[in-house]
């Protein structure tokens, strides 16, 4: 599903150049649930940004579902993001003047899906995350966990190839975190490929595979026995 070879990325900070990713080789099969771990500054967010086509790469190659991702202009990147990827952010990033259903329907709007179909699909995904009754509520009327579930529904709505979650539980207490992880595991059970960036070991252990990043290189890549989040809920 994802194949990365010899990925380098550096940022220019004035006259200095900061080499963030130093040759990453990494691939993800369909249906995997991968945790990307690392302390801050390890390059995990940069890796996720490149995977999310929010940032370009300096060197190496990136193939997503057989499509080489290169020479992206903004329009092309936007279309690829819309088609291939679903994003879940640490701070949810729901649009605060749109209700839950409208938020979930937004990626479909950019896919030019008709209004009626959009609403139907949005409701379907809201139901999947257990928030159908909250469809007409604004984000401000939802709890943190609920917001993240709406965000997950939004990421799923476009039926992406890969779900990218950047610290999805970073802003949540542990009970709510486990609820969200439970949801992510269930979505993974349905066969969806998911990448989770986290620095919490318990969250990482709820994935099937942990990739450990340190100073821009992968130091550890291991399969783990998945801890079901439902045990804690």
């Amino acid at each position: 599903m994802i194949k990365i070879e010899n990925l380098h990325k550096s940022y220019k900070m004035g006259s200095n150049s900061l080499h963030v990713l130093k040759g990453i080789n990494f691939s993800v099969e369909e249906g995997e649930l991968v945790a990307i771990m690392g302390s801050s500054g390890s390059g995990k967010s940069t890796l996720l940004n490149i995977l999310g086509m929010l940032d370009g790469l300096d060197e190496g190659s990136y193939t997503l579902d057989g499509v080489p991702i290169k020479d992206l202009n903004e329009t092309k990147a936007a279309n690829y993001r819309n088609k291939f990827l679903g994003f879940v952010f640490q701070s949810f990033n729901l649009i605060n003047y749109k209700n839950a259903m409208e938020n979930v329907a937004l990626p479909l709007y950019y896919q030019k899906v008709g209004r009626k179909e959009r609403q139907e699909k949005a409701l379907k995904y809201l139901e999947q995350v257990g928030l159908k009754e909250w469809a007409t509520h604004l984000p401000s009327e939802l709890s943190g966990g609920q917001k993240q579930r709406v965000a997950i529904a939004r990421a799923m709505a476009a039926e992406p190839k890969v779900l990218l979650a950047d610290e999805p539980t970073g802003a949540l207490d542990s009970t709510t975190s486990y609820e969200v992880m439970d949801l992510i595991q269930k979505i993974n059970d349905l066969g969806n490929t998911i990448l989770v960036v986290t620095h919490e070991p318990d969250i990482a252990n709820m994935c099937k595979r942990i990739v450990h990043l340190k100073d821009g290189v992968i130091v550890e890549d291991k399969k783990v026995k998945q801890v079901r989040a439902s045990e804690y809920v």
Partner: protein
Amino acid sequence: MWLFDKDLWREVFNTLGKNMFRTFLTMLGVIFAMIILMLLLGSANGMSNGFDRLFAGTASNSLFVWSQRTSEPYKGFERGRRISFRIEDASILKEQIPEIDVLAPRIELGSHRDVVTVYRKGRKSGSTVYGDYPEIDNITKKKLVEGRFLNKTDIEDSKKVCVIGEETYKLLFDKGEEAIGQDIRINGVFFRIVGIYKPNDNINIDGENAVFIPFSTFQKAFSSGDRMGWMAIAVNSETPVPIVEAQIKKLLKAKYDIHPDDERAIGSFDMSEIFNNISAFTTVLKGFSFFVGIFTLLAGVIAISNILLITVKERTKEIGVRRALGATPRVVKRQIVMEAIVLTAFAGLIGFAISVGILSGLDALFGQGDEFPFKNPMVSIPQFSISFVLMVGLSVLIGLIPANRAVKIRPIEALREE
């Protein structure tokens, strides 16, 4: 066609609707600008309409021709010879110069602007007395207070009737006294009053204190023979008056053996000159109003663009999210430009509605009286359309500034966690 994309409109209205107060404040600049533009244009129109009303009844494309004394000797005649037109000149001119629409000969009792004593039951007034054809009414319309003006039958039958001015009426009658059907005496001849007119206070050729009698009656009563004092001439609207004026003078000079270069023998006055001056004035006024108004409008639209720039900055994160969810730069741009258009158009319409109200109020206040040249101060549909289209066009151009700013925001920066 994206213009009919219901979802785009929903997105735009959603965004604008989420902060009604700011949206309203943003629009205020354009609302005021539109009011200023429309008030300026409306007032200029009102002024132009007001002038039109003032001069209503006076044929704008007209001239007056009268005879004077020669200033050059010619063909054995000495200078200083008094020229006197003959009544046949009227038909000659009409025949030879097809551009003449109406030609009304006139004769005055005594010399020009001389007053004649008019008597009635022991009262008297010093009035000017004119022998006229009814056609004069097509050139300088008399506002009749009572009765009628001279007509064809009066001429044909040489009736001893007259139309008097309001001032003459005041001198000869008591206040409120019935004048129609009463007789007045001029040089021993009695005339029956058939009408009273009110002077036109703006273009006043005849004076307020005047008596009009039929030309034919004048000839008989005062033995004027075939003399004619002056001519009021209306020229068809396509021909400039000076051209006809020159033709007339040339013809008359030849007929009366006047030196071709003698400028003083025949006097004339071109009415169209006044009208041209006034219409030039109102045109300049309108142009100036439009100019000022459009720039005010530009300032208003720029204010909208400014606020949108701030909004874009505030919405950095939202725009970033939209981009991450697959919004292409084009879509983001389009939405912000649409916001600019909707704000401007809506504000423009509100401003237009308010200014129509104000203009109606102004019309009610000043539009009725005769004194002030102001009437029906409304903006014409083309004026409004041009302003509106221009305004929306500007908003598109200026909306592109915040739109481009929004597109420049890279999603990765917008989404960076603090």
